[in-house]
């Protein structure tokens, strides 16, 4: 079976259009980030507390919101009604089928200067008081998860994440420069930056949080997109030697066409597995798999429409 017969698509003539599309996506993402004051960061980077609890029956978020508008812990009164409260675990297939699980609730609180001792635990106790009759008999089952990140750790993790992405890019630049030529590396890095910026922008547009797991997804996208770019570049390198008289543009076109069926098959298999992860993997890795879905699409696209045109530009300068 073959999906594609031999193709002779002139990809490089469509780079202008692709450039517009990319520019539009990037600008939309950046505008959204500027308007929201940067990407929406999870507590991993911003610090704060996130508590997810499990009631035995459906609960109403608005009731919870008004119940925690006036909470007294250790003599301090807090108003948590502005906190982000949502149902937890209603993602993937269930969400698509409209099966909202309204028994699990997650609350996200910003970090506070005057946080009482054992705050997260005491907050869980307050949550239990909202619907005392709906708390599981075995109290240990009530808490699904608690995450608390101090502001200092948050700042450190942000620094680490930025460093990780930058050092991955730098190492890759070096590797490609050694294995190929510097101009190939520039093309690859342009594509990667494009991928990460667009994924970040889409996250901001959709109001998804950037967490540690999402940064991990970004790095994986970097690896994946590059994988795709290199397969094409490898063909280009081979064909440049074979077809000395042809222009770089036509060589690249031919190389993309030759590796097109591989590109499509690999992208499809990877796309399907991350889609399945997105659909049945559950709440905890939901944003991770979403980032991967975006990344697989953008990464495949950028190998053809970003990395290759940049390579042509760089080649023309030489």
């Amino acid at each position, binding site marked *: *079976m*073959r999906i594609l017969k031999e193709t002779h698509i002139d990809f490089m003539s469509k780079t202008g259009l692709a450039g517009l599309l990319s520019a539009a996506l990037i600008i939309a993402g950046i505008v959204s980030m500027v308007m929201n004051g940067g990407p929406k960061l999870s507590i991993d980077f911003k610090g704060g507390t996130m508590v997810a609890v499990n009631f035995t029956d459906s609960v109403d978020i608005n009731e919870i919101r008004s119940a925690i508008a006036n909470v007294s812990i*250790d*003599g*301090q009164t807090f108003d948590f009604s502005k906190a982000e409260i949502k149902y937890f*675990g209603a993602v993937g297939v269930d969400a698509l089928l409209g099966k909202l699980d309204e028994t699990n609730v997650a609350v996200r609180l910003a970090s506070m200067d005057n946080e009482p001792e*054992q705050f997260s*635990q005491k907050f869980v106790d307050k949550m239990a008081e909202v619907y005392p009759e709906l708390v599981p008999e075995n109290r*240990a*089952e009530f*808490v*699904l*998860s*608690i*995450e*608390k*990140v*101090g502001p*200092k*750790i948050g*700042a*450190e993790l942000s620094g*680490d994440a930025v*460093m*990780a992405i930058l050092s*991955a890019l730098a*190492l*890759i630049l070096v*590797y490609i420069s050694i*294995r190929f030529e510097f101009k190939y590396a520039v093309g690859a890095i342009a594509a990667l930056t494009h991928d990460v910026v667009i994924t970040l922008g889409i996250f901001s547009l959709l109001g998804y949080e950037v967490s540690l*797991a999402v940064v*991990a997804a970004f*790095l*994986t996208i*970097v*690896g*994946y997109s*590059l*994988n*795709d770019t*290199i*397969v094409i570049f490898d*063909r280009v390198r081979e064909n440049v030697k074979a077809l000395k008289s042809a222009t770089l543009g036509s060589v690249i076109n031919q190389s993309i066409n*030759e590796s097109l069926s*591989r590109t499509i*098959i*690999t992208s*499809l*298999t990877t796309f*399907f*597995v*991350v889609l*399945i*992860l997105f659909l*049945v993997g*559950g709440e*905890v*890795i939901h944003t*991770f*798999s979403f980032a991967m879905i975006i990344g697989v699409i953008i990464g495949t696209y950028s190998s053809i429409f970003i990395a290759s045109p940049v390579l042509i530009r760089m080649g023309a300068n030489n």
Partner: protein
Amino acid sequence: MQHSLTPRYLIIVVILAWAVYALRPTWQYQNMTEDKKEELRTAGELERIESRIIRQGLDLKGGMYIVLEADIPALMGNLASLKDDRLETIIEGAQKKSANPDVDFFTAFEEDVKTDGIKLSRYYHEYGASLDDIITALKDEADDAINRVLEILQNRVDQFGVSEPTIQKQGKHRIVVELAGIQDSKRARSLLQSTALLEFYLVKNIAVTNEIIAQMDDVLREKTDSSEQPGPEEKPAKKDEKDDESTTVSELFGDSEPVTGDISQGTIDDIFADAPFSGLLTALPGDMGIEEKNVYALKKLLTRPEVQSKLANANGQFLFSQDAQSATNVNTPEKYYRLYYLENRPELTGGIVDEARADLGTLGSGSAGQPVVSLAMNSEGSRTWSRVTGANVGERIAIVLDKKVHMAPSIREKIPGGRTQIEGFADINEAKDIAIILRAGALPAPVNIIEERIVGPSLGADSIAQGTQAVLIGLALVLVFMLVYYKLAGIVADFALIWNILLVLAVLASLQATLTLPGIAGLILTIGMSIDSNVIIFERIREELRKGKTPKTAIDSGYDRALTTIIDANMTTLIASLVLYQFGTGPIKGFATVLFWGILISMFTAVFITRTIFSAYVSRKTLTSLSI
């Protein structure tokens, strides 16, 4: 190729045998019943099996991950032989600066000391004369403290009884604690965080206490009058009510009914204005009480500098009771803490505990049926204890743990032999935990929880179910696709893929790596991505076939030409996963590990194993066509 196939078979068989060997314990363990596990545990064999299985991360098994940071500024305060505002300001300033992750506390501390021109030797004369000497010595002291904290925490956790706890130092002043399968995170947290500083203070007598409360009111009232803008209607009222106020204070100590019941809202406001300190208090039988909602306000008042200096001059301190309780004989939902006015020097302090045991109070004693901790002191402690109790018969002595008063009994007679009991625990578990931490010793520096991640057991179980489901569906999808698309060659690729997954798991088991939920995601991603190597090869072979080559030469040149592409393309993902491993904590590291091995092994299976199969297939008969 056919002449060199035998060593290839050998390598493949050896690796397969190794994979089966490496995965067997995991397989056994997964299929073991709890009874069988218990049986093996008593026989001492379970540990050997457990050391060879793929561990599940906290996000799958449920448990808690806590990062503790030693409170170095507090330690510096404790180490100083002399404490004054100037030093405190400097420590506080350095603490604020070190909130920035790039600034080290000691660097900031040293700078501030220099700019202020303060002489450190006044405060830390035991640690040297010159600034450099003292700073170095203090740094050593801090390093030493964190090591002792580590040891003590290990001790506490061991006694608490958690399976496979991990307690590690991270960086210079941090400790990471991982406790799998913890059900009661509250207990575990107190166990880790209590400093376990045990102190015995004499309680000041009623007259002195009344005196200081009146003084508190005075000093705070002055402050309010001068600094804040009082409402015009409040001012004239004050002077007239001064007499009232003093009676309120003395009433606090009568055995009278608590006064809260019959005070209307208006008069409460007046009392707050007029008696900012005592207005927050309530009389409880025998003690001062403070309603839970007022605690924070009172604590804030107590941190004011004018209050602090007043207390310092009087050699006194206010401490709260451990728990809030409903006032006896009053039917109200309000809970009260007891407030104690104590000497500010302890008569006896921690480090004297020889043995601590949790128990229920014996019949006939005041604490019958209540959880108590029985202490036995060492000889030095016993001597002091007997002297202190002997000299203060009739006085009350407060037993204070981590600056909270557990009880303040009256001393009836001299207690020789260094035995005593502590009451005031919520339940027997709390008493047990306190006994553990008293045995393990006090922490040399307080520790703060700076990061905490808890996954409940039900969420972990859900994650395993969902992750496994995603892996199986993803795998099935890719296997079917390859079979349909590449026919016979697809079967070879499928075989390689299953191999790949087995090998990744075998490597995880033998590295004793931890499988986390992101790790499962990595496995799924590996399924999707590792097929790539075979796709590259197969497409190449198809291309060669289209050029009219024979199956055998097509396979050979297909593999040869695809090899560099595969290596170059996968290298970059390997680089990304190595960076990720370096950067990530727990779950993310799990992802990076799986991705790294998944990609590495996929290169091996695609290039080595499938090629061997193809070569064997081609060499058997004279092929005219290839099912690809």
